[in-house]
């Protein structure tokens, strides 16, 4: 297993090297106007000077080498547009904890609500009118059908501007770190989509699992339904979902674009979009690097966790399949 992990990490490093190189080239394709606040009134010399001071006039390989050199020293560089002159580690260091805190809260809630909902729905498929399954499906379908850009703002307005939200619960419209009440709406917004997601997949896997022969046998033998679904169906159905949990945890640190912008949450959410639009190259590079590390680590942990949960999966065989 150790050998497998080492091999995968090495391969991931190569992948990351390629990603960064391509990204580097892509970022240099962006129009130079993006680096200037008042491009219109600057002379040719001034433009030249600024580009030189950003290190953009050097040949690309030289810029790339400099970047890798910095990276090896643990230096992500300094932001040059977003917050000029501030170290990227400092900017990110302020934002990550906020996103993680809210993200983990909502992850816990989504698992705590989504999984039981999925089980309920799956079990309800065996009842006569399938009421639980139908209601659950309606919820899932609606959440999928209404764009998240819309339902987040609906939750915000319904939660903070209607009589119930405003007068009875006193929910504020914006997030304020020191006010616990202000966590309710953003966490709800963040959770609702993943509740639907977890419920949908758990139901799917459980229904598939319960059609398998060994379950039929168990039923035929007269094992009580509750025991079957707890001991056999749920456990097996949960295995493919386990794979995504490390990913979900790690990705909480990237935040949510919609929710964080609506509630004034100083998290990571909109950072990548802002950085790209304002052409803060160093910041984009750093964020993409983090993004890649997270997704690669997430997959690795997911596989390891799956191996632990499900002894049938062996790493030797899995190799090369991803």
């Amino acid at each position, binding site marked *: 297993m150790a050998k497998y992990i080492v091999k995968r990490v090495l391969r991931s490093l190569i992948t990351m090297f390629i*990603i960064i190189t391509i990204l580097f080239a892509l970022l240099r394709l962006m129009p130079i106007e993006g680096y200037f606040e008042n491009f219109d009134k600057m002379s040719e010399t001034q433009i030249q000077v600024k580009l030189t001071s950003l290190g953009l006039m050097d040949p690309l390989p030289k810029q790339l080498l400099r970047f890798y050199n910095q990276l090896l020293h643990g230096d992500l560089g300094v932001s040059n547009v977003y917050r000029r002159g501030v170290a990227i580690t400092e900017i990110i260091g302020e934002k990550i904890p906020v996103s993680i805190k809210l993200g983990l809260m909502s992850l816990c809630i989504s698992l705590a609500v989504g999984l039981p909902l999925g089980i309920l729905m799956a079990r309800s498929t065996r009842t006569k009118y399938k009421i639980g399954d139908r209601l659950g499906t309606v919820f899932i379908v609606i959440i999928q059908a209404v764009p998240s850009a819309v339902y987040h703002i609906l939750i915000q307005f319904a939660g903070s501007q209607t009589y119930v939200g405003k007068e009875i619960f006193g929910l504020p419209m914006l997030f304020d770190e020191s006010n616990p009440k202000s966590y309710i709406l953003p966490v709800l917004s963040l959770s609702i989509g993943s509740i639907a997601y977890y419920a949908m997949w758990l139901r799917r896997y459980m229904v598939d699992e319960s059609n398998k022969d060994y379950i039929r046998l168990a039923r035929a033998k007269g094992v009580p339904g509750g025991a079957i679904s707890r001991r056999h169906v749920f456990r097996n159905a949960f295995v493919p979902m386990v794979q995504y949990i490390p990913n979900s945890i790690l990705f909480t640190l990237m935040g949510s674009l919609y929710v964080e912008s609506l509630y004034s949450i100083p998290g990571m959410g909109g950072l990548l979009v802002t950085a790209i639009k304002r052409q803060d190259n160093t910041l984009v590079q750093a964020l993409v690097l983090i993004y890649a590390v997270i997704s690669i680590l997430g997959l690795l942990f997911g596989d390891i966790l799956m191996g632990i949960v499900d002894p049938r999966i062996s790493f030797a065989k899995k190799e090369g399949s991803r």
Partner: protein
Amino acid sequence: MKRLRFRSMRNEMTDQLGDKLNAQLADQMDAMSDEEKFSFAEFNAAEAERGGYSGYSYWGSTFRAFRQNKVAMFFLVVMVVLLAFTFIQPYLPNQKDPLLIHNDEWGLPLNNVPPCEEFWFGTNAIGQDLWARIWSGTRTSLFIGFAVALVEAVVGILVGVLWGYVRKLDFFFTELYNVLDNIPQTLLLILISYVMKPGVDTIIFALSLTGWLGMARFIRNQIIIIRDRDYNLASRCLGVSTGRIIVKNLLPYLVSVITMRMALAIPSAIGNEVFVTYIGIGLPLDTPSLGNLIQTGRSLMTVASLRYQLFFPVVVLALITISFYIIGNAFADAADPKNHVR
């Protein structure tokens, strides 16, 4: 209790089947003369070949199974009506131009008119008819959705099959996937929006650029699961060419999942268009789409009397998404041969 119920159900089913067979037999017996009854049945090759499912047709059974799903049938009707209406709407009488600005008698625009007899869905902030804009936007969005789904299917299946079946290519495609998957889509979208003129083609190109990745990976995983099954091994041993194995053995097995993914790719492309508009690189306003209609509506959320401008496009989008979603799922269930036997 449950045990009992299960047993009795099982018994009931068995009894029913038995009764049916007995009835069939009785019918046949009645039609025969005594002589016939006591003569030897001769060996008939065709008859021997006939399995239990005579007259079984895959597509026939699929459609039969699909028709039994009443909810899906309902949404199929909704979708067909919606699609048909979207395309014939401009040719109906009394329809307005989605770009025409309606002015009052003093030459000032009739803006933000709430839904009324003249403007069924009201007008927007500069006095354009929202009804016409929504249907024109739906046309644009559906076109984007279909185009992206098509590219996704063609490229995704092609790459996915090669990736999954040809072992030598596995490493290459896996790395390619890892690299492409990690380049943020936002960056590509913004770069493309700089290089190309904003417009429908640009959006389709941008969304297709990375859209096929998910499909390819999905197909590849499915192929890996089935490529070493016995019947494929047998085909290989018999010297069947790779192309034929893929086309005849593997793809038919995947038809149902592929259609489902395509059905879901359409609403997801429309949803992506909404996202792209949200981050500010969507279609220009003179090309109405559900994305820019919703984005405009969102910014008016704050005034209660203008919320109709958000409500109408969201309802249309939701209807399209729900229809595709339900139909896609129902079709996948119906296309699974396991569900053809009851």
